């Protein structure tokens, strides 16, 4: 029975095997304990071993669960029907992950304050904050306080926007 857990377990088995193959392609000093690949290879083989055990356990557990329950459709832990707002949780998750990715990549271009405000305002809406004063106050206020405290108050430079060195 393939489910989310067995897919994760399968990926965790494939990754060390792929890394072992990649590691073999590199040219390193080959003198047993002196080789830079000695320790990583040891770890990767152990990782692959326990990951194989983990995958087997997941597949067996999945099969047992499938035969025990008839059409419960429960899936993995934390089924995606919750959420902190009124959107489906999968959409909320995808949007918050995208917002964080955009924040991380925009930090150098727009500075901490502008990208932080954008992240906060967007995420608050996604997570279901409907009160406009709270949304605007928190979304602008918290990044502004953090930026002012660190950048201007403590003199610890954070990235600024292309528009002004002040923010």
């Amino acid at each position, binding site marked *: 029975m393939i489910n989310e*857990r067995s897919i*994760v*377990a399968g990926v*965790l088995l494939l990754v*060390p095997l792929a*890394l072992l193959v*990649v*590691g073999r392609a*590199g040219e*390193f*000093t080959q003198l*047993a*304990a*002196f080789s*830079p690949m000695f*320790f*990583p290879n040891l*770890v*990767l083989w*152990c*990782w692959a071993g*326990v*990951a194989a*055990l*983990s995958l087997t356990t997941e597949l067996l557990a999945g099969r047992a669960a499938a035969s025990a329950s008839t059409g419960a459709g429960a899936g*993995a*832990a*934390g089924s*995606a*029907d*919750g*959420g*902190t*707002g009124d959107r489906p*949780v999968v959409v*909320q*998750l995808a949007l*918050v992950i995208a917002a*964080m*990715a955009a*924040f*991380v990549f925009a*930090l*150098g271009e727009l500075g*901490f304050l502008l990208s*932080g405000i954008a*992240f*906060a305002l967007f*995420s*608050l809406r996604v*997570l*279901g904050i409907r009160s406009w004063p709270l949304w605007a106050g*928190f*979304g602008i206020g*918290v*990044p502004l306080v*953090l930026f002012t405290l660190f950048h201007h108050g403590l003199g*610890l430079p*954070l*990235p600024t926007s292309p528009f002004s060195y002040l923010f």
Partner: protein
Amino acid sequence: MLSVLPQAAALILTLQGLATLIFGTTLGIVLGALPGIGSTVAVALVLPFTLTMEQAPAIILLLAVYAGSVYGGSISAILINTPGTPAGAATVLDGTPMARAGRAGEALGWATVASVTGGLVSALLLLFAAPQLAAFALRFGPIETFALICLGLTCIVTVSKGSVVKGLVAGMLGLFLASVGGDPITGEVRFTFDQYQLIAGFNLLAVVIGIFAFSEILIRIADGPDAGGGNISFSGIVLPRLAAWKGRVGNLAKSTAIGCGVGVLPGTGSATAAFIAYAEAKRSSPRSAGFGHGEPDGIVAAESSNNAVTGGALVPTLALGIPGDVITAVMLATFTLHGVTPGVRLMEDNPTLIAAIFLGFFVINLLLLPLGMLVSKAAAPLLRIQEPLMLVAIGLLCVLGVYYVRGNPFDLIVMFGAGVGGFFLRRAGYPMAPLIIGMVLGPALELSLRQGLIITDGQIDQFVTGHPIALFLLVLTAIGLLWPLFGWARRTLGRRRA
């Protein structure tokens, strides 16, 4: 050392000296409690402002921030399941379940008393036994260090809730992540995929914040509004009654001793001590079944040991110039910036300053109790804000904390990747503490193993012959690994007999 205590007291016990201690400890607790800030950032944050101060007050202020921040890490670990410091990761294991069961004040009470006890004992250790401990630590060569780290790794088994196999997978992932980058012996780079930013390896703080803080945001969204820490009620610390300590004092003493001992050993650190003490407490506690579900013994072990490290780690830092962990490496730089050169001659050349540091450290740990109660109570309103607001604030602090340490945008990408990866792993039931244990212990494990193999010309059996300390530690490691197996066999036999 004792003969110069009156002069040292004259430096500390003044109005300015006490104000410095109170301000530094409060600031440390607040900064340590903020997710993603932590001890290293806290000390680095305050350091520039101390450069214009006198030598002794400046160093004592930074020590107060250091000790306060280690304690402060427990506040966010317990209340919002996000350790402010890597050392707080062990506190999460029992602190958060206890808080979610409506016992947040009690959990912080245990953490506070354990932290104060650990810190005070380590301060006394510094004061009276620093030279002897420094001399003992010098006996640890690579083989003994390797054996000690193997012992530390056994706690992966005990912190793996639900599935030991999954814990081992996470531990191996952590060990692998620790090996990415420059080889410690030859300098050749491994698994960097032509990314020059990876030559120095993955930033530990970025990974910690990613898998604990950022993935926590995603987990809370996925689990819905009723599953997160937003429902934790907390109206102040509740100190444990004297009767509640019955049967726990031994655990407190043992964990404090582990913290002091591990702290003295160079290159280990408070996270290592916390997990070793936690593992030992779980192994030996009569209430071991409750570990991971809100057992005070777990909090006591983690907090007393990680605070005991603060004093112990200063021993090799001051006496040998060898930092005990990442934060004492920052402290080492701090001492140098203030014109104090740590090393074997420091105690002979600056006895008054060193005594003032030790005495100040003792007072700081005394202050942790009242200040901890005040500051954590002030943090209570933060927990009543709506969960989306808290999640967004954590997201902002994640980025701020990771960026601030090195100003390296690549660390943000690591944090992001660790957060998303950690989310999927946590949903699939993989515990995250073993990953961090692997990352923390990995570099020292690799270095000590390979140095040991070089010393013994590749003969692994010589790791135990002629190295009694290593042999003792490896026997303890074997016991630690086999203990769950004994327990399982005993339970199985018991069931069959019944």
